[in-house]
């Protein structure tokens, strides 16, 4: 059953409250079909002059969009209504287009022009159930049309009736056809113009981002995409760079190293991680290519290394992207995520057991270990080596342990400080939280190796495998 028919039936329900509930439910479902990430909320009002029926929000959009339901959106006084309510660039959805008195008369055309003009001026979308029918029907056939329908819901303006909706979906089809096969820039631009006539300026650019990704994914050169803006990667937002990276991950052709280097120079690992938060998670493969080239250039001063419940047999030493913690690396017994901002890990929890001192004596012989915090049944002990110290922490502990002290044998390591001379930084490992902080940003490669040795306590063979993998 079509959206318009469902609405028609809902409006016939005799009980007012049940009718309104049904109408709102159908509109909410319709909206979600056009834009699955939309989060519409009911206001409790129906066809109210000032209060919207729904407020539509998105996790990734700064502002909500109000949606007003109207029985018809093409009458004489409607342009004035758009002017009165246009402050917040809302959506008007006509429930019963057949109720519209505007005919194909000269006066009707003048009224339609007035409404279109008011809607464009106020960045307001005026649409109706027949247009939604066109969109939902197209989306049910090819999901990628969401790029266009989503753009209309979020940033559409002007009058989008069923004719306009048909124009939009056919232009989208033309654009995608050219992007994937012909790649004739003039044809793509012409199709984009058809669609963007119904989008506000900002949303036209957002819409083009998606199509540019398709262009790149199909093997096109980013700079050659016939967008409204010239393409300079360094001037792109993190989301735009993430779009590009996502497209590069998916494209069939190999990605030249120079392309990855351009990405690395245009975005930090931290920003890339944030931009990928709500995207499909990626692990290994081309991400490894990107991260291997970026590991010396990208820096972090925070890391979180949650312990894995069991040792994975595959994908060890693969890089990971997506999710809450940003760019990460899978080690044999834990994962490591890197950040420039400790708040990224503020909600992160770890139930890891503290390492037993007697099992970590080997690493304590490293000259880099300059401090340690121990927990025994009776006391907390912190040891920091002075600069003038001539022995290692390992040597000091060895003396204590060799005295056959059960207390020291069973002591647990709560904290450890590593001095990275080459980076002129101190790295503090908190074994309770599995959070690691450096006094200044260090390269991801260096951070990964420090964590692999001192937190994950990888044996030498696995350390060598990691180093080989990092390249």
């Amino acid at each position: 059953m079509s959206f318009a028919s469902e609405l028609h039936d809902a409006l016939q329900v005799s009980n007012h409250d049940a009718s309104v509930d049904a109408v709102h439910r159908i509109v909410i479902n319709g909206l979600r079909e056009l834009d699955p990430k939309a989060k519409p909320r009911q206001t409790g009002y129906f066809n109210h002059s000032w209060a919207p029926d729904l407020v539509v929000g998105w996790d990734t959009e700064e502002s909500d969009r109000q949606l007003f339901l109207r029985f018809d959106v093409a009458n004489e006084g409607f342009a004035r209504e758009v002017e009165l309510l246009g402050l917040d660039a809302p959506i008007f959805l006509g429930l019963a287009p057949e109720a519209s008195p505007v005919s194909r008369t000269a006066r009707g055309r003048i009224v339609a022009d007035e409404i279109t003009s008011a809607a464009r001026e106020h960045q307001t979308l005026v649409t109706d159930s027949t247009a939604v029918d066109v969109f939902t029907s197209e989306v049910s056939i090819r999901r990628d049309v969401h790029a266009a329908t989503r753009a209309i819901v979020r940033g559409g303006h002007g009058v989008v009736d069923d004719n306009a909706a048909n124009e939009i979906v056919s232009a989208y089809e033309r654009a995608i056809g050219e992007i994937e096969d012909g790649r004739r820039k003039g044809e793509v631009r012409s199709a984009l113009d058809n669609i963007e006539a119904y989008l506000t300026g900002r949303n036209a650019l957002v819409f083009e981002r998606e199509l540019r990704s398709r262009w790149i994914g199909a093997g096109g050169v980013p700079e050659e995409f016939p967008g409204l803006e010239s393409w300079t990667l360094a001037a792109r937002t993190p989301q735009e760079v993430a779009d590009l990276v996502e497209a590069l991950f998916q494209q069939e052709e190999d990605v030249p190293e120079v392309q990855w280097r351009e990405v690395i120079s245009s975005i930090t690992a931290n920003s890339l991680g944030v931009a990928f938060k709500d995207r499909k998670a990626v692990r290994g493969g081309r991400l490894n290519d990107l991260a291997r080239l970026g590991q010396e250039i990208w820096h972090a001063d925070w890391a979180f290394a949650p312990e894995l419940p069991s040792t994975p047999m595959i994908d060890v030493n693969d890089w990971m992207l997506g999710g809450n913690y940003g760019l990460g690396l899978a080690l044999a017994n834990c994962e490591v995520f890197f950040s420039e901002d400790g708040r990224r890990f503020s909600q992160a929890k770890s139930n890891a057991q503290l390492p037993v001192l007697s099992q970590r004596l080997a690493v304590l012989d490293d000259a880099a270990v300059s401090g340690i915090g121990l927990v025994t049944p009776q006391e907390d002990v912190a040891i920091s080596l002075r600069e003038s110290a001539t022995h290692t922490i390992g040597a000091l502990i060895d003396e204590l342990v060799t005295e056959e002290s059960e207390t020291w044998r069973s002591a647990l390591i709560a904290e450890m400080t590593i001095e990275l001379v080459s980076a002129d930084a101190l790295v503090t490992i908190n074994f309770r939280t599995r959070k690691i902080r450096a006094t200044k940003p260090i390269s991801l490669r260096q951070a990964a190796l420090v964590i692999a040795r001192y937190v994950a306590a990888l044996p030498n063979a696995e350390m060598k495998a990691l180093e080989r993998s990092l390249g």
Partner: protein
Amino acid sequence: MTAETRASSGASVLDGTARPIAAGRDRSASGVAQHIRRVRTDDNSRIMRQDQSVSTGEESGEIGRLGVNAVKRWLEATMRFQVPYTVYDNAVRVTLPLVNGSVKKFDMLAHHYDSDQQTLSKRDIYVEVKTIGTLKSARKQTAQYKEFVATAYSATKAAWLSVGRDPTFEFMWATRHPWEVEHFLELTTPSFVESCVGTHAGLIGDEVCETPIAQLLADRLWVWHIPSRQDEMTMGPRYRGYVLQGVMGSFG
């Protein structure tokens, strides 16, 4: 306004002997029952006529639509009313059957909110809009308003008979021009209601005008004289925005 069908008289709706409107001989014969459907909701019983073929001429003309929409806008700007339906949007929802078997199509159906502005007060208000620009037209309101009140009485009684209890309908006369200034305060009194019904007996068929219903109805009449500068008395978009933010904060 017409009163085509004469109906047989019935028992009082206030003494508990009310019976369905279709039970009478003539009503049954005229098929009134087929026009009426009982709709029971949580908060009220609403009656709607399902036959949409009745035309009063109100639907035609964009000027009338503009006038009705303006009144809808002003009423809703108070945030005490919601007007989900006008005669231009959904004629069925603004139509009430009368006790004489005919129907009345009002201009709007409004729902009223309690002072907390979030809870419906359970009042359904049927609104008649008069967009009047001349004194001659204004004077016609003397007769028009009387007919409106008698119609309100007839609709109330019809609903009462149909559902067996007080339908609690209210009725509003929203006009752009005053009239009957010397008797203005009498326009919402029980005696005025009774006199209106008396002079429009055809609207109640064979029923008699019951004083208790007239008293109830008098308290449920709204007369709103809308000044020509009402727009300037209405909260502007900025403040409405604040109100909406507050309202939305309660559910967002």
